[in-house]
C-alpha cells in the first residue's frame, strides 16, 4: 500500500499536471475496482453466455450439443403471436405498476417528510410490504381476492355493497388490474424510501426563500423540490421499470398467467420456455429482444428527463 501511495509523489515531481490526472485516474479505478470485480466475475460471463444462447438451438438435456443457428430464433419469434400478446401485457403491467408506484410513493414520501405525529411508526409501517417474505405475500393476497371468503369481498359485504363483490382474479376484466395493484403494493416501500432519502437533499433555504417570495405550495414543489430530487427520481423510476418488467413471481402465484392468458407476462413466458419446455436457445432469444426494446424505451425516457433537467 505504501508503494502505491509513494510512487505518485515521485511522478508529480516530474510534471505536475499530467501526473495529477494520471494518479487521479488510478485512484478512480481503485475506487471502482471493488464493485466492478464481483460484477465482472458473476455477471459478464453469464450475460455473454445468455446473449450467445439466443443465437443457438440450445435445449435442456444431458450432454446436448449446441449449434449456432444465427437468426433462426428471431425469425420464429417474429411470427410468435402468443409472445407479442404477452409482451403487450408486460408493457401494460410494467408501465402501470411503475407510474402508480411512483405517484403514490412520492405522495407518501412527502407526507413522511413532514413533522407529523407518529412519523417513526408510520415510516416503519410503510416498509411492511418489503419486509414480508415473498412466499407469504402471494398467499395473503389470494386471501384478499378470494371470491367466497376474501377480505375485499367481505369488506363490500359488511358495508352493504354486495353488488361490488367480484371474482377478482378469475374475471377476465379484473385480473390484470388486480395483480397490478399487488405489484404496486409490493414495490412501494422501496420507491418511498429512496424518494424520502432524496428529499433530505433538498436545501431548506431554497424553500424558505421561495416561501418568503410568496410562492404557493404547488409552486414550491414544482420549482424547488422536484428539480432537486430529479436525479433520484430518474434513477428509481428507471430501475423500477426494469424490475417490474422482469418480475413475474407474484403474478405466477396469483394467477399463473390466467385467466385465458390475461396476465401472461413476457418474463413468465420466457421462464416457461426455459424452465418448463427446456428451450434455452429460444428463451434467450426472447430475452435479447426484450432487452433491446426496453433499452430503446429507457433511452427515450432518460434522454427526455436529462434534457428537462438541463
Amino acid at each position, binding site marked *: 500500500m505504501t508503494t502505491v501511495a509513494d510512487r505518485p509523489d515521485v511522478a508529480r515531481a516530474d510534471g505536475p499536471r499530467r501526473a495529477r490526472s494520471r494518479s487521479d485516474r488510478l485512484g478512480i479505478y481503485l475506487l471502482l475496482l471493488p464493485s466492478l470485480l464481483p460484477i465482472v466475475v458473476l455477471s459478464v460471463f453469464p450475460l455473454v453466455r*445468455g446473449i450467445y444462447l439466443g443465437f443457438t438451438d440450445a435445449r435442456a438435456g444431458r450432454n446436448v450439443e449446441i449449434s449456432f443457428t444465427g437468426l433462426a430464433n428471431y425469425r420464429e419469434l417474429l411470427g410468435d403471436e402468443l409472445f407479442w400478446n404477452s409482451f403487450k401485457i408486460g408493457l401494460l403491467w410494467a408501465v402501470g405498476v411503475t407510474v402508480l408506484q411512483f405517484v403514490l410513493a412520492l405522495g407518501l414520501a412527502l407526507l413522511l417528510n413532514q413533522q407529523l405525529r407518529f412519523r417513526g411508526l408510520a415510516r416503519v409501517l410503510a416498509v411492511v410490504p418489503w419486509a414480508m417474505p415473498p412466499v407469504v405475500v402471494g398467499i395473503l393476497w389470494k386471501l384478499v381476492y378470494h371470491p367466497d371468503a376474501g377480505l375485499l369481498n367481505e369488506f363490500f359485504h359488511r358495508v352493504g355493497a354486495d353488488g361490488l363483490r367480484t371474482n377478482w382474479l378469475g374475471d377476465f376484466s379484473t385480473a390484470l388490474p388486480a395483480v397490478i395493484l399487488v405489484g404496486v*403494493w409490493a414495490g412501494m416501500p422501496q420507491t418511498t424510501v429512496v424518494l424520502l432519502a432524496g428529499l433530505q437533499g433538498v436545501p431548506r433555504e431554497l424553500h424558505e426563500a421561495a416561501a418568503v417570495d410568496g410562492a404557493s405550495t404547488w409552486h414550491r414543489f414544482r420549482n424547488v423540490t422536484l428539480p432537486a430530487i430529479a436525479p433520484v427520481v430518474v434513477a428509481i423510476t*428507471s430501475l423500477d421499470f426494469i424490475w417490474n418488467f422482469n418480475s413475474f413471481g407474484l403474478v405466477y402465484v396469483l394467477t399463473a398467467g390466467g385467466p385465458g392468458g390475461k396476465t401472461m407476462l413476457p418474463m413468465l413466458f420466457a421462464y416457461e420456455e426455459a424452465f418448463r419446455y427446456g428451450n434455452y436457445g429460444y428463451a434467450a432469444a426472447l430475452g435479447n429482444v426484450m432487452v433491446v426494446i426496453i433499452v430503446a424505451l429507457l433511452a427515450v425516457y432518460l434522454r427526455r428527463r436529462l434534457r428537462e433537467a438541463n
Partner: protein
Amino acid sequence: MFGKPSRTGRTLQYVALTGYLIFLGFPLVWLLSTAFKPPRELVKLHPTLIPSNPTVQNFVQAFTEQQLGRAALNSLQVSLASAVLTVLVALPASYALARFRTKLGTVALGWVLLSQLFPFVLLIIPIFLILRQVGLANTHAGLVLIYVVWALPFALWMLQGFVRNIPRELEEAASVDGASRLQVLRRVVFPLLAPGIVATALFSFISAWNEFFFALVLVKTPELATLPVALARFVGIEGTARLGPLAAGSLLATLPSLIFFAVMQRRLSSGSLAGAVKG
C-alpha cells in the same frame, strides 16, 4: 418542508397518511391474526380479524417442524454481511462515478443496468456453475457474493445520484479550509450521504433476507438453509399451504427487517444540507 400548513391541511395529511398505512400495513395485521388462528378458523366463509379461539400452536409447530431458529440465524448472518459489504463496495465506486467522468464508469453503469434487464432465469444456471467451480456452492459466502452483486446495481445507481446531489462547492470549500481529501469525505460527504447509505443498506439487507431461489439451489446442507427456504416448506401442492404455521413463521421473519428499519430510519432525515450551504 412546506412551511406551516393550515389546520385543514394538516387534517388532510393525516387522513392521507392513514389511508396509505391501511393499504400498506393491513396484510401484516392479517398475518398477525392468521398466526393465532386454529385450523378450523382459517376456512370460515366470513373471516374475522380477532381469532375466537386464539392459539400459539402455529408457532410451536413452525419451530418444532422446521429449524426456523437456526434458519433465522443463517439469514441474519448472510443479510448483515451482504448489507455491510454492499455499502463498503458501492460507496467508493459511486463517488468515483459521480465525481469523475470516465469511459470505464459509463460502461460500468450501462452494464449494471443491462445486467438487471436480462431475464434473470437465464442467468441462474451459469452463475450456479461458476460458484461450483470456485467452491462456493453450498456456502453462505457464495450467497453473500451473489447478494452483493445483486444489490450493487441499485446501490451504485442510487448512491451516485445522491453524491451528485451534494454540491461540489461544499467539498471545495472544505478543502480550501485546509481539510485533507479524507477529511472532506469523512466530515462533509459521508454525513450528507447518510440517507442514501441507509437506503442502500436497507435494500441490500432486505433483499438478502427475503431471497429465495439462490438460497434454495445453492445451499444443499439442511443446517445452512435460510429462512425463506425453510418457510417455503409449509407450502404444498397447487398453492395450498399450511397457513397457520406459515403465517406464524412469516410474522417472525418480517420483524427483523422492520426492527432494522426502525433503528435506521432516523438516519433517513439526519443528513440535512441546511447548515452546510451557507454562502
